[in-house]
Structure formats: structure tokens, C-alpha cells
């Protein structure tokens, strides 16, 4: 196996990591206005993802950086082609990130309502557009011999890619609902479970349709090992998604979240294996497609990156896992519904303070 193939896999893993992690915090953001009954609920929902959302987002930055380093032509062609969609995603991620940090910093209902809207839109837009973008990547875009995109914004709005958008939107919403059912208590937990029941059929229909369409029309090859792997991953995703819906019905919250986690990872794997060995197909001519061969960096760069990734990726997984362990408990609101002006001090569960 060439190092460029290894880096194709690494980038697929990074995107899968991004979707399984940020997927649920997008979902929580989308559900924020739908599941909350008052400000305490909203705070509980935001705090459930508070310690981890930023670390989740770094998976995106690492995927982008790895693409830049390992496949400069892919990075260049893709980011310049998807200029306007990426602009929308950037604006969404900006207002969303600021909203988490700034929302509680003033005690005004309108201030908080504004940032709540930013969290909702900032989660909804990327959850939809990442699917549209990936649909277009797998389907291919009009890319000429100079590796320039010759289409426009409407090129991206084809039925297949739009179904991809609905897929990520419903999958991430389901993911967020399952996460909230796992991480909250009381009425919120019950509402999250019901939201997951509502989202699951939509995700199954959209996701199943999108993956089936991918298998039928957009695989690089139906007979190669990767083509078969793609079909297997799609089947696994469908089974895991159904299992997630079933576990949710039986109130097996941990199992439901884990199953949906698997479904999102398998769906991502199915798309990348369908793509291989291309990284960005050209709809103008197969000869103009970017592939792991013609878009990759030279061996020296890939070798350096491989060494660095082998040392640090396990380390990152270890300490990110540790964070999830530290914050593993369910999040609850304060006993009486009050809204302190500042992040509240922990209540008096600790020993009497020592006078210095």
C-alpha cells in the first residue's frame, strides 16, 4: 500500500471522527429550541456539550490540514470549488462557537435568545451543508484540466447531493437526541427520547436512500475490493441505524447512542470507499478526476506526516477519551429554576472553607 492510500484512509477516519463527534453537538444545537421548556433546559442542553464541542470541532481542522498536507491538489480544488458553501459553513461555525461562550455572559433574555438562535442556525446549516458537500464530492463536480471548478453554486443543488444533506441533517439530529437522552434527566430526557423516535424514521429513509443511490450510481467500481467494502459499510450503517432506533424504543440509551455512532462512522466509510481511488471526481471527464495518485504530496511529506500522526493521534484519542470520562455524568439543572447572572458557584457540597 502506498503512503498516499494510507493518508486517504487517515482523512476518511478524521472525517468520520468529526461526524460522529460534532454530529451530536450539531444535533443538540438543532434541538435547542425544539426540546427546551425554559432557560434552565437550554442551559442543561448547552452544558451537556459544553466541555467537548470545541475538541470535537478540531477533528474538522485536522481533516482540513491533513488534506492540505497529504493531497494539496485535492485541498486546493475542493476548497476553492466549494467556495460559497464553505463560506456559509464558516459563518455558521463562527457564530455558533462564539454563542456557546458568550450566551451566559450577560443576564438579558434578548441577549440569550439571540445567541440561542445563533446556536440553532450555526448547527443546522453545517449539519445540512456537510451532507450536500459530500454528496457532490462523491458524485463529482465539473473540474477542468487546470483543476478549476467550472460550475456555480447551483451545480451543487442536485437531488442526490440534497438527499445527502437531508441525510446528515436527520442523522445528526438523531445523534443529538440520543446524546441528550443519555446525558440529561427528567422531562428533557423523556422529550429527547421522543425526538429520537421521530428523527429515526426520517434518518433511516433519507440515509438508506442516499447510501443505496451511492451504491447504484456513484461507486468508482462495483467489483473492486473497495466497491464491495463500500456496499458492506452501507449495509452496516443501515443495520446500526435500525439498531439505534430499536434500542431507543427499549430505552437502552447507551446502546442507542453507540449504535448511531457506528452508523455515522460506517456511512462515512461507505462514501470514502465508494470514492476511492478518486478523491474528487470530475464530471467533465474521468481522466480529469483527482485521485490518490495524482493529487498526493511527495513521499517525503507523507512520511513525515505518518510518523507524526502515529505518535500523536493515539495521544489525542487518549486525552479526549479522558475528558469524556471526567464529564460522564448526566447534566441536571439547579434544584429550583433560577437564572443566576453569572456561571453559578457550585453549591455547598464541599467542606467548610479553610481560612487562609
Amino acid at each position, binding site marked *: 500500500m502506498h503512503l498516499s492510500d494510507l493518508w486517504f484512509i487517515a482523512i476518511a477516519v478524521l472525517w468520520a471522527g468529526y461526524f460522529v463527534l460534532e454530529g451530536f453537538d450539531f444535533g443538540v444545537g438543532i434541538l435547542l429550541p425544539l426540546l427546551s421548556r425554559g432557560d434552565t433546559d437550554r442551559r442543561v442542553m448547552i452544558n451537556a456539550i*459544553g466541555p467537548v464541542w*470545541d*475538541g470535537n470541532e478540531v477533528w474538522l481542522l485536522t481533516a482540513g490540514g491533513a488534506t492540505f498536507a*497529504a493531497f494539496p491538489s485535492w485541498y*486546493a480544488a475542493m476548497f476553492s470549488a466549494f467556495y460559497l458553501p464553505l463560506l456559509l459553513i464558516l459563518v455558521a461555525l463562527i457564530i455558533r462557537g462564539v454563542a456557546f461562550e458568550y450566551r451566559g455572559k450577560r443576564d438579558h433574555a434578548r441577549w440569550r435568545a439571540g445567541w440561542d438562535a445563533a446556536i440553532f442556525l450555526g448547527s443546522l446549516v453545517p449539519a445540512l451543508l456537510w451532507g450536500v458537500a459530500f454528496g457532490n464530492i462523491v458524485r463529482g463536480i465539473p473540474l477542468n484540466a487546470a483543476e478549476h471548478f467550472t460550475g456555480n453554486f447551483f451545480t451543487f443543488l442536485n437531488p442526490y447531493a440534497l438527499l445527502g444533506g437531508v441525510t446528515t441533517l436527520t442523522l445528526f439530529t438523531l445523534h443529538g437526541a440520543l446524546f441528550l437522552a443519555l446525558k440529561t434527566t427528567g422531562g428533557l430526557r423523556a422529550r429527547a427520547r421522543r425526538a429520537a423516535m421521530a428523527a429515526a424514521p426520517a434518518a433511516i429513509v433519507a440515509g438508506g436512500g442516499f447510501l443505496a443511490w451511492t451504491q447504484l450510481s456513484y461507486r468508482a467500481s462495483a467489483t473492486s475490493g473497495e466497491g464491495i467494502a463500500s456496499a458492506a459499510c452501507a449495509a452496516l450503517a443501515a443495520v446500526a441505524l435500525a439498531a439505534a432506533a430499536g434500542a431507543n424504543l427499549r430505552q437502552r440509551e447507551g446502546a442507542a447512542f453507540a449504535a448511531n455512532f457506528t452508523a455515522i462512522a460506517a456511512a462515512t466509510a461507505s462514501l470514502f470507499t465508494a470514492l476511492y481511488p478518486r478523491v474528487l471526481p470530475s464530471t467533465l471527464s474521468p481522466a480529469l478526476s483527482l485521485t490518490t495518485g495524482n493529487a498526493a504530496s511527495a513521499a517525503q511529506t507523507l512520511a513525515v506526516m505518518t510518523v507524526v500522526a502515529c505518535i500523536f493521534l493515539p495521544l489525542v484519542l487518549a486525552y479526549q477519551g479522558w475528558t469524556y470520562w471526567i464529564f460522564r455524568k448526566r447534566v441536571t439543572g*439547579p434544584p429550583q429554576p433560577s437564572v443566576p447572572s453569572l456561571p453559578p458557584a457550585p453549591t455547598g457540597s*464541599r467542606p467548610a472553607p479553610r481560612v487562609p
Partner: protein
Amino acid sequence: MSVLDLSRWQFGITTVYHFLFVPITIGLGFLVAGFETAWIRTGHERWLRLTRFYGKLFLINFALGIVTGIVQEFQFGMNWSAYSRLVGNIFGAPLAIEALLAFFLESTFLGLWIFGWDRLPPRLHAACMWTAATGTLLSAYFILAANAWMQHPVGSRYNAATGQDNLTSFAAVLFNPAQLAGFPHVVAGCFMTAGSLVAGVALWQLLRRPGIPADHALAFRHALKAGAVTAIAGAVAVVITGDAQGKLFTQHYQPMKMAAAEALYHTSTPAPFSLLTIGSLNGSHPVFEITLPRLLSFLGTGNWSGTVQGIDNLQSQYAAAYGPGSYIPVVPVTYWSFRLMIGMGMLAVLIAVVALWVTRRGRTPAFTGKRAGLWRTSLVAGAVVLPLLPLIGNSMGWIMTEMGRQPWLVYGQLKTADGVSANSAGEVLASLVVFTLLYGALAVIEGGLMLKYIKGGLAGEPLPGADGDGDDGGGGPGAGSGGGADAPMELVY
């Protein structure tokens, strides 16, 4: 405007804006970690209060630093795709490694710090801030190594036929002499910036009327000292590293940059340093100019009689080497940004020194006598502008070094005009307008929040473990992780 101009404006605006928050984050992270460690070591509650207070300012800044950083990583591909395609072999690697080594560290451990007050033992909690701060420093190293490569490409083989660069030695890229001079310079500037912020806020708190409680004043006195000493030490390091960098670039890497920064058109032995100029900088006789004889020779070469090359001479050399065309950066921009960078830094140091002097050995500035009002007003004004001066200085430094490199994108190899994407001007105009408006709105919001929390002072900071009995019940670090891992998670946001 062309796609090139629009893209350059966008990159300039978004990058200068991003770098307003970055230096505060880098320097303040370490100062806040230091305050928390001081609390653990001494058990004095004032250090905890300072940790919470400056920690809040840190987070308000960090949020914008993070989100504007995402734009930075994306716009190389979005707006500079030709550049990305040609140099991704070298330039992409530090970016990817920055994300893997630094961004994960910062975001994860900062999350632990924000939410971990009642879940982590104090030492571990403080260690989280030290780790996050180290992450910001690592991040700076990798992105500055990438920039240093653009300033002085090493460790790569340039293929003139394809225009592509291939990596030959990653160690050479990481330990580029331009990086070894530039990284300490930038980091020293970061500490100067954060120190000035801490000291300026503390001085303002000490001067405000009606006065603050005695224990708060004592805390801010400590903060002022820590901040001002950091700022002054940072400034000394800025000068030393800046000098080294200046000599390296003037003599070896980019003589044109210093020639433009001095508006020195003709090669001179020795060369005078131009302090300021009124009138045109186009090489004709200016209306008024103050010069210090021989100083530029010393700054540029270390020798009072050294030769410094002039713009016109360099232009003909470059035209002979690289073909016809102009190799002269925009002289007034380079000239004035260089002077403003130095001037802002010097003014900041002056204010920091005065702030230390008026509060020496437990003194509080006494406003008596005939000119008391003026003296107080000056000190308050000094406290207010102190945090802003290094921010302007940092921006000017970047504008000087990036504009001074033009027309090159990668010095000597790739021109800026050849690095831009083939996108339509309409698309780039749209993103330029969107980013400018969004960033402007966020600046207003951020500034408002900073002012609110600065004015709130230490009284506005609830302490972890406070019983809410009104007294300062924060307790020492020995109070332990009372919440414990088994208690339900508390709401922070």
C-alpha cells in the same frame, strides 16, 4: 477590484483581526495559569480571584481567536488555491501538525479547565491551564514555521518547470533561521501584549473612584506588578529578537524589506536611520525629515559604517535575476508600519514602567497639589491605552513584514499574483463583505463584554466552592474537589 486585490484585502483583514486575539490568548493563558498556581502555593484567596477574573477575560478573547482561526485554515484553499497546490507539500504539513498537536490540546484542556472547577483537584485543574497555554505556544510555533518558510524558503526543492516545491528536510523547515529569529520575536510580543492587558486593567482598578475594597486593591496590586513586569520583560525580548531578525533579513534574506521600511532608495555606506518623514516617500526630497546618522547601518549590519542596500539598486538586481517587473513593496505602508510598531511598543513600556513606579512598595498614587487632576487623568488614560498599544504594535509588525515581502508570496519563488484562486470576483467580494461585517459586529460585542467584566472587577467573580454566605468563602486550594466526580455536573454556560 480584481480577484487578487479582493483576496489580499480579505486575507489582510481576517489575519490582522485574528491576530488581535491570538497574542492575548498566548500570553494571558500563562499568566492565568501562573495566578492559579500562586493560589495553590500560597492559599491566598486573592490569587484565586485574579485567576477567575483574568480567566474570564481570557475566555472572552479565546472564543474569537478560535472561530477566526478556522477561517485562516480554510482560506488558503478557498482564496489561494494555486498557492496551496504548489506549496502544499511543505506548507500543509505544519498546518496539519498544528491541528493535531496544538488545537486538540488547547480545546480539550480548556474545556476541562472551564468545566472542571468542581471535578478536578486544584493541581490538576491548574495543570489543565498550563497544558492549554502550552498548546497555544505549540500552535504558534508551527504556523510561524510555515510563515518563516514563505519569508525564507528552506528545506525544499523548487522545481521551476512545474512551479512546485517538494520537501527535502522537515527539520530544516522547523528550524529555519528565519523561524528561530521570528518565533521568539512574536512570542515575546504576545507576553508583552498580555502583560500590558493585565497591568492596564489592574492600574485602572486601582485608580477608579470610588475606590475598591482593600483586599481587591491588594489583589490588583499583585496583578499590576505581574503584568507590568511581564510586559517590560517581553519588550526587552522583543527588542533583542527584533534586532536579530532585522539583521538577518537586511543582510541576507530580504534586503528590500528593510530598504522599503526605511524608504532608502540608494545604497548607503553608512546609512542613516529615518525617524520620521513629512512629505512623499517616493525618493524625491521630502518636506521634512529627521534622521539619525549611521543608526541604520548599525541596526542592519551591526557595524556603524556598514553598507545598507537601497531600493533602486535592489530593484535592478532583482530585475536581472527574476525578470522584468517591479520588486518594490508599497513603501509608505512598510515605512510607517515599521515606525508605528516600534513607537507603540516603546510607549507601552513607558506606561508600564510608570505604573510600576507609582505603585512601588505599597504606594498608591496620591493626587494632591496643583496638578493633581491632570496627573490622575494621565494615569487613567495610560491605563486605558496600555492594553491597546501592543495590539496595534503587533498588527503593524505583521503588516510590515507581510507587505514588505511583496510582490512575493514565497520569497524568490512564487509571486502573490500567481497564488490566487480562479474564483470569480463576485464570490470573493461576497466573502470579503460577509467577513468584514461579521468580524466588525463581533468586535463590538467582544469589546462590550470585555468592558463589562473589567468594570465588574473582582466582586463579580463567584468563587468555586463559595457557600454563598456573603463572605469570601472561596477557601484555599486545600478545600479540595468538594463537588467530586460523583456529583452531578454543574452548569457553567
